[in-house]
């Protein structure tokens, strides 16, 4: 259902002075859509879910057709697409090394949210599928990469969100959730739901030199061409991150947002910034029910 809200005036407080007038700052929104926080919600948006809902039974004949392969939502590049060793496998090894160094006393795992912590890797299963989540220590919702940065800091290591080493640890942790469906709860009232709603709003907020919102293309022009690229659905697109891409070597979801912004001539934000985390929650909720798949590759 579409609610017409284009050219809504975006109310923003412009001063910390309590009594100061709150002027309207004119910002534009793309037509708002409702989204189901579950991967099959795509059936009401692009319908391409039919083609990629079952990762084990993709029709690879479609993958070979440049006019049609967008319908697979690039899932054909998830493992085992490339059975040769690629950059994602090197990252997995690097992640294992780093995790071993960080978790010598088992405290790194505890900090990540592994119940009971400890040095055993057996409890890491399912961790990735439950992020982003509310963190009591950070007093906010945070994605796995932000939490890796935070917990590595406590061990005296700098692993900036978006850096190679951070994403390598993230891929390593995600590998224990391979095949497990993404499961974050944005339906229950609370900070996760609020974050999801902020993310949904951001998804429709127009920005940059071209005045595009994410939804300008990824909700309202899915299946149409931008020259050689065909626009895909936002559903089911968060389960394979961080991803191996030759251009970026390893790309976390926040770095993907940076690339999206720069490609559409919008000043990008920093990985770990609040808007990107809210978008991460939104995108991850739209992947609810879809299995974690690392290490994956993508062309874009």
């Amino acid at each position, binding site marked *: 259902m579409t609610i017409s809200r284009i050219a809504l005036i975006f109310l923003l407080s412009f*001063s910390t002075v309590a009594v100061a007038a709150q002027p309207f700052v004119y910002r534009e929104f793309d037509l708002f859509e409702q989204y189901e926080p579950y991967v099959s919600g795509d059936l009401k948006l692009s319908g391409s879910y039919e083609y990629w809902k079952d990762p084990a039974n993709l029709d690879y004949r479609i993958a070979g057709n440049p006019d049609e392969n967008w319908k697979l939502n690039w899932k054909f590049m998830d493992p085992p697409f490339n059975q040769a060793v690629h950059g994602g496998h090197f990252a997995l090894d690097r992640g294992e090394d780093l995790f071993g160094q960080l978790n010598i006393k088992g405290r790194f795992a505890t900090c990540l949210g592994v119940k009971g912590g400890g040095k055993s890797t057996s409890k890491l299963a399912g961790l990735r599928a439950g992020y982003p989540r509310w963190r009591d220590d950070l007093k906010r919702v945070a994605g796995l990469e932000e939490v890796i940065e935070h917990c590595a800091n406590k061990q005296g290591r700098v692993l900036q969100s978006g850096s190679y080493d951070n994403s390598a640890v993230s891929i390593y942790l995600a590998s224990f959730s391979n095949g497990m469906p993404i499961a974050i709860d944005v339906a229950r009232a609370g900070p996760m739901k609020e974050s999801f709603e902020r993310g949904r709003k951001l998804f429709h907020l127009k920005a940059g*030199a071209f*005045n595009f919102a994410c939804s300008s293309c990824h909700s309202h022009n899915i299946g149409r061409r931008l020259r050689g690229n065909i626009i895909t659905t936002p559903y089911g697109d968060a389960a394979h991150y961080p991803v191996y891409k030759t251009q970026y070597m390893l790309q976390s979801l926040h770095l993907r947002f940076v690339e999206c*912004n720069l490609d559409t001539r919008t000043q*990008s934000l920093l990985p770990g910034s609040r808007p990107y985390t809210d978008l991460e929650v939104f995108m991850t909720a739209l992947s609810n029910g879809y299995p974690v798949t690392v290490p994956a590759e993508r062309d874009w």
Partner: protein
Amino acid sequence: MRLGSFFILSIFLAAPAWSVDPPSDASVRGGKTMEPKIIVNSGRLEWVPHKRELGAWPTLSYQDRRATPEPQRAAMTAPTNGDAARGKSLAWTWCIACHTLPGDEWPGTVGSPMWHYKQYNHADALVYQQIFDPRVFNPHTVMPAYGTFGLLADQDIRDLVAYLQSIE
């Protein structure tokens, strides 16, 4: 009197919030748009200057209090005086990602096709406005406002108009 001074004071205190600078969580350093560079086996990102300066337009940041440029009517003075050849070259830079232009084997299909554009007999001023700021005709449009956002100059748009009007 007291109320008046308080009002003036609050405007004064509020003034920094109207700054034209990009927000602090934008990837800007020294006034330049930066992009991340991944360093293999490193826990730090390297930031290098991006090929374009993008700091002038609103971002997705919650701290960004800059307004989107509002829809603007353009007054094109006749005659059009456009150079169709230059317009074609501009169209292949700015329009082709979304619009199909004659001679393109990988056409964009987000925008309407520009084949046989001449047949529509649009007035030059209307085509100029559509490129300058299409939101005047359709507030829901996805097409950028090339004039209002300062992406194309007056003569650029005139050249594009001349090219489009020449497509048989």
